[in-house]
């Protein structure tokens, strides 16, 4: 049987149309957009067209889009760039416990450089309380970075509300929208953000290309220092095929977003209900309704995540886990810890994330395959006792 992929939050396959759009830019239209000759001007035009399409989708000006190498770079550029640019004004940054490492690690780096970072807690569903943000803002606060939706537990944050507050206080506001661009409908004005990160490979575009939206007037110290590309904001030869692919991916998302959200929410809720009916002692992680349409994250008591993941993989189902055993650091997911999950339940977590190619049959198959896997592993577990 063909393996079924339930890990779209980790990465997505390039849509064949995206690949087709990229293909001419590898060997035929290969010029460097920075070159003045015809080879260069041709690709420059194509890059600018992609930029305009993406900007329009985001409700932004094309001059506000900076292409990067991915979500991680966008987050580094936003956090470090704003911090260095506004050091004259203050040294305080506010973020949350459930941010991606690509926000938290730059913050930790900046702490060593003399910045102060407030890391806000979240509630049991993984939501940041806007009142906590309000209370944390001081005269020295220069940047707030709160993600749009969490990649592990799918919780959607009250971004617009926090953004409004940030604007009132003259604080830059960044959101990591890597999990939401092309998956939820929004514009940068809806969200009240100054900076927004996205990554093409999460929406059927290629790996290795991302963007940072930078609202006009937002000062940023460059992160990638060097040549004068991207209006001197981000150096390095443009990844032309990547950018073209990103443009195409956004164009396609624009067309299919609405139907996708509807389908995915139905399947997501069917999976959640189904797991809870078929398996005892299952907990849903993350907000039950304010969550990504494609995200199901559960903790299954008394079994460990990697064991379930491996068993599912052998049965042709690919998913991910927040278990310690799956990471190089041997610590369980910081997100699951932040929502107050006991260690044992954190170790027993599984994330199933769906995508455009997911079918109703895939969902049914998963609902059939998981319960016996859990039963088999629970039979080996010294912790499990039927309730």
């Amino acid at each position: 049987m063909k393996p079924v992929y339930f890990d779209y939050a980790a990465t997505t396959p390039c849509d064949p149309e995206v690949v087709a759009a990229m293909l001419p830019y590898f060997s035929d239209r290969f010029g460097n957009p920075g070159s003045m000759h015809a080879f260069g001007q041709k690709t420059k035009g194509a890059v600018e067209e992609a930029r305009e399409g993406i900007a329009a989708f985001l409700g932004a000006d094309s001059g506000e889009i900076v292409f990067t190498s991915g979500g991680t770079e966008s987050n580094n550029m936003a956090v470090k760039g704003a911090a260095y640019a506004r050091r004259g004004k203050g040294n305080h940054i506010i973020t949350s416990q459930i941010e991606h490492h690509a926000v938290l690690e730059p913050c930790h780096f900046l702490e060593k450089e003399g910045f102060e970072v407030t890391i806000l807690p979240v509630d049991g569903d993984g939501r940041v309380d806007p009142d906590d943000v309000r209370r944390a803002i001081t005269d020295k606060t220069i940047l707030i970075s709160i993600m749009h939706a969490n990649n592990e537990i799918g919780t959607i944050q009250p971004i617009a509300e926090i953004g409004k507050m940030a604007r009132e206080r003259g604080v830059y506001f960044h959101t990591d929208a890597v999990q939401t661009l092309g998956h939820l409908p929004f514009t940068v004005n809806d969200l009240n953000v100054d900076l927004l990160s996205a990554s093409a490979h999460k929406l059927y575009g290629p790996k290795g290309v991302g963007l940072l939206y930078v609202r006009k007037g937002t000062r940023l110290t460059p992160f990638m220092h060097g040549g004068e590309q991207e209006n001197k904001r981000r150096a390095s030869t443009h990844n032309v095929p990547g950018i073209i692919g990103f443009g195409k991916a956004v164009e396609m998302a624009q067309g299919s977003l609405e139907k996708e959200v509807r389908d995915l929410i139905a399947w997501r809720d069917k999976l959640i209900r189904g797991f809870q009916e078929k398996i005892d002692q299952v907990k849903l992680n993350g907000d039950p309704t304010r969550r990504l349409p494609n995200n199901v994250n559960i903790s299954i008591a008394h079994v460990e995540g990697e064991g379930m993941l491996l068993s599912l993989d052998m049965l042709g189902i690919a998913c991910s886990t927040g278990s310690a055993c799956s990471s190089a650091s041997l610590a369980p997911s910081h997100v699951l810890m932040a929502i107050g999950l006991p260690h044992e339940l954190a170790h027993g977590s599984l994330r199933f994330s769906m995508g455009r190619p997911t079918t109703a049959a895939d969902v049914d198959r998963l609902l059939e395959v998981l319960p016996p896997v859990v039963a088999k592993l629970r039979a080996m577990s010294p912790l499990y006792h039927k309730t």
Partner: protein
Amino acid sequence: MSQYSEKVMDHFANPRNVGEIENADGIGKVGNAVCGDIMNLYLRVENNIITDAKFKTFGCGAAIATSSMVTELVKGKTIDEALAITNRAVAEALGGLPPIKMHCSVLAEEALQSAIDDYLKKQRDKA
């Protein structure tokens, strides 16, 4: 699954000796939920020879495979022979473990030591 050897995958998918031994002669319980691995090992010992071994494990693929392997390795061994089984021996018998999973083999060694300690203590208590 290139992370694990075929042997590991076999022992994970078809673990040997799963279960508990009633009135076991030696019981070892190691690990805790915080670090994500718990291993319970049960031994039946007759005339200083381990005649049966069973396990229950909460843990990752490697933890289950090392549990399974250690029960296989000890069966038929004398107590002294069993005491000489190191974590490396368990890992090697499985065709190797990824570096970040070597701690699972350590846990298996500890479970075995602990079960044997328990057996020896029970013997002393009887005497």
